[in-house]
Every structure is written in structure tokens, then in C-alpha cells.
């Protein structure tokens, strides 16, 4: 099951002049969070161009960013600002047209489709706006999905799924189908699924978009707790209120990082 992920990991620090100062803050320890560690995500002058008819859309036009372990960032911006493209790239669903992307030591920029799959499987957890649970599978089986693709044994996978479900407060719902759960519960299942194989990075795309305010608040509290426990979280949202849960906000416009608030 181990695909080779031994791509060149050259921790060349990007030129400081053009670099977003994401990781420049002090190793804040005064709010009780664990000290941010080594860089988990490194983007260096990343461009993404799409052909559209005979035009070329420059969805990302030179993004440089560094995210360290256990940081919590919100990416914000109007539609068309490039935040979705950014999330797709960060999620290894797409490759940059030019530039470099190193995720947890693996240079993703030129990986094959299979290698990208493997990286997503080992290093990333996705949380979507519309939950995206697989309707014919039970809660248990949904949570087990990444473990299944990692080739876990049935017993180990069952145990891990139960632990993870308890971690998000769903220990008693394992036998249900997604359709039998409320929106908030479904999103918790999705979080459990993202956590099951214990990846370092969680990517959340408008995770509260389909939830009412109170449920959304509880969901954000859950993410915040996970961050406190050491997960690196990148959240895409257009709601300022939600973005405030993160410790830093990256504002995007026209495929570029416009400004950065906070320090993740």
C-alpha cells in the first residue's frame, strides 16, 4: 500500500521579500495553544491558469504562503478571487501550472494522479459544505472509508472508527444511515471521516454553509478544539463571523493574496 512519496524535499525558504508573513508572528503561547511548529504547507509563487475557450483564466497569479503545524487559517475573498482554486490546490486535487507546493515534506507540484491520491489519503482530511457522506453506507462505514483505502484490517478499522466517532460526539449513531441524521450530526460524521486516518491537515470548505447558526457555532467549536489538539486547519469561508474562529485570515482578490490578518 505504500506509494513512494520520497519526492525531493528541499526546504528552501522562499524569498522573504515577496513572502506572505503568515509565519512571521511570535511563537504565540499566551493563548494556551501548542507552539506552532515546522512548516506543513509551503506555496512558492504558485500560478494556476485554466483555458476557457480561447482565453486563459488566471485563477491564481503568484501565491506564496507558509503554514506551520497547528495553525488555523481562514481563507476569505469574494467569488472569483481564487479561493476555491486555492483550496483545490492545497487539497492536492489539482496541480499548479507553475510554482512549487510542498505538503508536509512532499513536493506535490509534479506528482502523478496516483501519488496525489496517496497524499490526499495520508496527509489530508476534507470537510465539505454539503457534508458529502455516501448515502448507502452507514455512519461507521463512512468514517472507515479512508481506512479502507489505506488497507486497514476490518477489526482495526472498526475500532478506530468508533474512537473517532466518540471524539466528535457521535458514539451512538454508528449504525445509522446519513439520511437519518440531522445536518449538524452529518457534518460531525464528515469531520470524523476526515480525522479517521489522523492526517495533519484538515481542509474545510464552508463547513457551516448548510447549518443553522447555533449548529454552525458548535461545528466551529469542534474544529477549534481539534486545532487546539494539534491539527492544522485551513478554512474557506465568506462569512466574517465564521472566519473569526481562525487565528488568522488570508484575504484573496484576483488570484492573489491581498492581505493577511492575524498570525494563524
Amino acid at each position, binding site marked *: 500500500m505504500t506509494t513512494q512519496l520520497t519526492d525531493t524535499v528541499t526546504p528552501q525558504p522562499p524569498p522573504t521579500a515577496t513572502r506572505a508573513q503568515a509565519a512571521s508572528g511570535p511563537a504565540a503561547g499566551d493563548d494556551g495553544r501548542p507552539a506552532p511548529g515546522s512548516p506543513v504547507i509551503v506555496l512558492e509563487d504558485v500560478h494556476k491558469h485554466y483555458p476557457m475557450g480561447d482565453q486563459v483564466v488566471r485563477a491564481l497569479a503568484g501565491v506564496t504562503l507558509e503554514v506551520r503545524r497547528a495553525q488555523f487559517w481562514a481563507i476569505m475573498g469574494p467569488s472569483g478571487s481564487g479561493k476555491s482554486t486555492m483550496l483545490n490546490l492545497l487539497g492536492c486535487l489539482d496541480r499548479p501550472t507553475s510554482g512549487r507546493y510542498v505538503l508536509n515534506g512532499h513536493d506535490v507540484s509534479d506528482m502523478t494522479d496516483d501519488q496525489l491520491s496517496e497524499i490526499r489519503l495520508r496527509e489530508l482530511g476534507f470537510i465539505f459544505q454539503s457534508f458529502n457522506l455516501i448515502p448507502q453506507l452507514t455512519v461507521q462505514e463512512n468514517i472507515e472509508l479512508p481506512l479502507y483505502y*489505506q488497507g486497514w484490517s476490518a477489526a482495526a478499522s472498526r475500532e478506530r472508527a468508533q474512537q473517532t466517532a466518540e471524539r466528535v460526539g457521535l458514539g451512538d449513531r454508528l449504525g445509522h444511515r446519513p439520511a437519518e441524521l440531522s445536518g449538524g450530526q452529518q457534518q460531525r460524521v464528515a469531520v470524523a471521516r476526515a480525522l479517521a486516518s489522523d492526517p495533519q491537515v484538515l481542509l474545510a470548505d464552508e463547513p457551516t454553509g448548510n447549518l443553522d447558526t447555533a449548529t454552525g457555532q458548535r461545528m466551529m467549536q469542534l474544529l477549534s478544539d481539534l486545532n487546539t489538539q494539534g491539527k492544522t486547519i485551513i478554512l474557506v469561508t465568506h462569512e466574517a463571523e465564521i472566519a473569526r474562529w481562525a487565528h488568522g485570515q488570508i484575504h484573496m482578490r484576483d488570484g492573489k493574496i491581498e492581505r493577511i490578518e492575524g498570525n494563524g
Partner: protein
Amino acid sequence: MALIKIIRDVRLGAKTLLLHKLRSLLTMLGVVFGVASVIAMLAVGEGASREALDRIRMLGSTNIMLESVKPTDTPDDRGQRTRVLDYGLRYEDERRIREHLDHVQRTAPVKEVRRSAWLGERNKELRVVGTTWAWFELVPRPIIAGRILGERDMDRTSNVVVLTEHGARRLLATEQSIGSRIRIVDGYYEVIGIVQNEEASGETQIPDSRVDAYIPLPVARERFTDFDVRITAGSIERERGELHRIIVQVDDEDNVETTAAAIQRMLELNHPNGDFTVQVPLQLLRQREEQQRIWNWTLASVAGISLLVGGIGIMNIMLASVTERTREIGVRRAIGAKKRQIVSQFLIETLLLAGIGGLVGIAVGPLLADRIESLSGIPTIVPTWAIALSVGISMTVGVVFGLYPAARAANLDPIVALRHE
């Protein structure tokens, strides 16, 4: 470990298919009927060919059949229908074949006449064959009662007769009739035995299918002479013919064809008008086998078309399923499923549909063949290889028609698939 994984994958596939029970069932039906009809058609073909070949084998695969043929009328003959037509195989031909050809083991000369016969008050026209004891070696049939002609009967004073089952029925003779006398025209013959005979079937000419009684050839020659008078539709035909048929037995199947050719050449010398035919059952057998093989495949191909339709049905449903589950595919890919894992997921589902359909078809096929047999009387035989073939075909159908939808699923762009509503 790998097996456990496969079982898990199959269970998951089955679970997905069970979500749409009716749809899966209908999809499977296509394969069920396809496989069942392939099996049934092969069974019909196999039954028919087995029967035909058995019939031909009854003629003996080492035998050569020579027959007298009446020359076709030439325009000159039209005016003089009353002249004597002299044609056919001669006693001399039989002797030459027996004595001069290396591989010939035995010959059975045959003289056929139709004559009135009486057993007590019962009177019927019988088809009487004058032949030698060799006949019963070349056309072996179970003896029902008494004995058959032997070497000691080959004398023109041995007035004995062996009835066939059919002849016995016509004269109402039974086993008790052994030893009693029947009268044929003006001569009396002692019934010494009754033998079974094969009924005629299809286009295959079986030598004893139209025989009621056997008498020793020397007796037949003496009593009935070589002249025959037939009155047909207002005209009188006088014919002279010595033998109607000669059956030649060759020592080995390998020598049948060369011997037949030698006989043909030999006879042509003495019969320039071509008043004979040489038939080789072995050749007939080979021709029939070839014909039957083509016919069987034709039947199976027609049935195969329904299997093809079944396969297209599967493909159709799987394509619909891929479209319906685009989101799911996107999610699986985002989580980290590789393309080939998506392919195998969908392929397992099609293989399940095709495989289960195929198994049911294998169960239904022989029943269908039975039904055909009982309704139409056509004998059917389900050959084992037909079952193996059907399993192979249905799995192939699964793979062939599953691969495209599966590949289509795997090649979806996960970003696009995730956005799919």
C-alpha cells in the same frame, strides 16, 4: 488477506446493488435469459447432431454402400416403355469386389422384391430381401426370437425366412410362429427367426429400415429370377436387375475412402451408363458433423445476441449509476481513492450483476432445454462445455460492458465530480 479484502469489496458491491433491487434484478434478467438461451440452443443443436450421427453410425463407419440406380429415361425410350430395362449391380460385381480388393473384409449382396405373403389367413405384401449371412454381420441387430440366416442356409433349397419386427407385425407373427410356414407367392418358407430392425428417420437411409423378411440369396435368385414386372400408372415396366444393393465392409476406417474409390473405378469399367452409386457413410458422417457444427454455432450465435443485449443493458444501467453517483466518486477520489480502486469498485458491481445473472441462467438453461424437448420432441443434450462457455461469456460480458462505465467513473475530474449536483 487479499481474499478477505475481495470478500469485503464484493459484499459492499452487493449492498450497493441491493439499494436498487428492482433495477438490479431487471438488469440481471437480460443476462439470465441470454445465458439460458445460449445453453438451450446449444443443447438443441447438440441433441440434433447426436441423433443424426447415431443414425449414420448405424450404417457402419467402415461400410460402403453400393446401390443400383435406374438410368434416367432418354428421349428415345419414351415410345417404347414396354422394352426390358436391364441395369444395376451384378453378382459378378459382388464377387470381384470380394475377391480382388485387399481391404474388403465382407460383402453382403442384396436382392429386393415385393411379393404377396400369407401366414395362415393373413395376407400382406412383404418387402423381401434375398441376402447372405454376411448381412447380419454388417447390419447387426438384436435377435428377438429364433435364429438368423447362417452359412448352411446359403443353398437354393433352403426355404427359410427371417422376419423383421416390422414384417412380423404385418403378418401378425409372434414368437410362437417360429417353425411355422409362410407362403410367399407360390413357395413355402419356414420362419426361423425374428430380428429387430431400425425405423427410417430423416434423410438417412438405413439398410434394414424397409425390410419385412430375409431369405437366402440363392433361394431368392431361384424363385424370383432377375426379371421384374411393375405396373405403374397404366404402363408396364419390365426390368432385369441382379442385385439391388451391395454392402461392403472394409477392415479399417482409414481404408474406407481409398477402397470406395477403387470400387468406383472397378464398377465404372463394367457400368459405363453409371447405373450405380457408391455411398460412404463415413463421408456422410463427416459432412454431417461439419454441417451440424455450423448449425450449432448459428443457433448459439442467435442466442448470443440476446446475451449481447443483456450486456448492453448492464452497461446502460452502470452508466446511469455512474452519473447518479458522480458525487460519491468525487468524494472517494478526494479522500484518496486511486483511479483503479474506483474502476474495481464499479467492475465488481457489473461482475456481480453478470455473474449472478449467469448462474441463474445456467440453472434456467437446462430447464428451458427440457421444456423444448417435451414440447417439440426434439432431443436435447446439455453439454458440459456449453455451461463452461456460458460462465465464460457472462463474465466476459461483465468485464467488457463494465469496463467503460468504470473507466468513465475513474476518469471523472474529482473537482468537477464534487461540484456535481
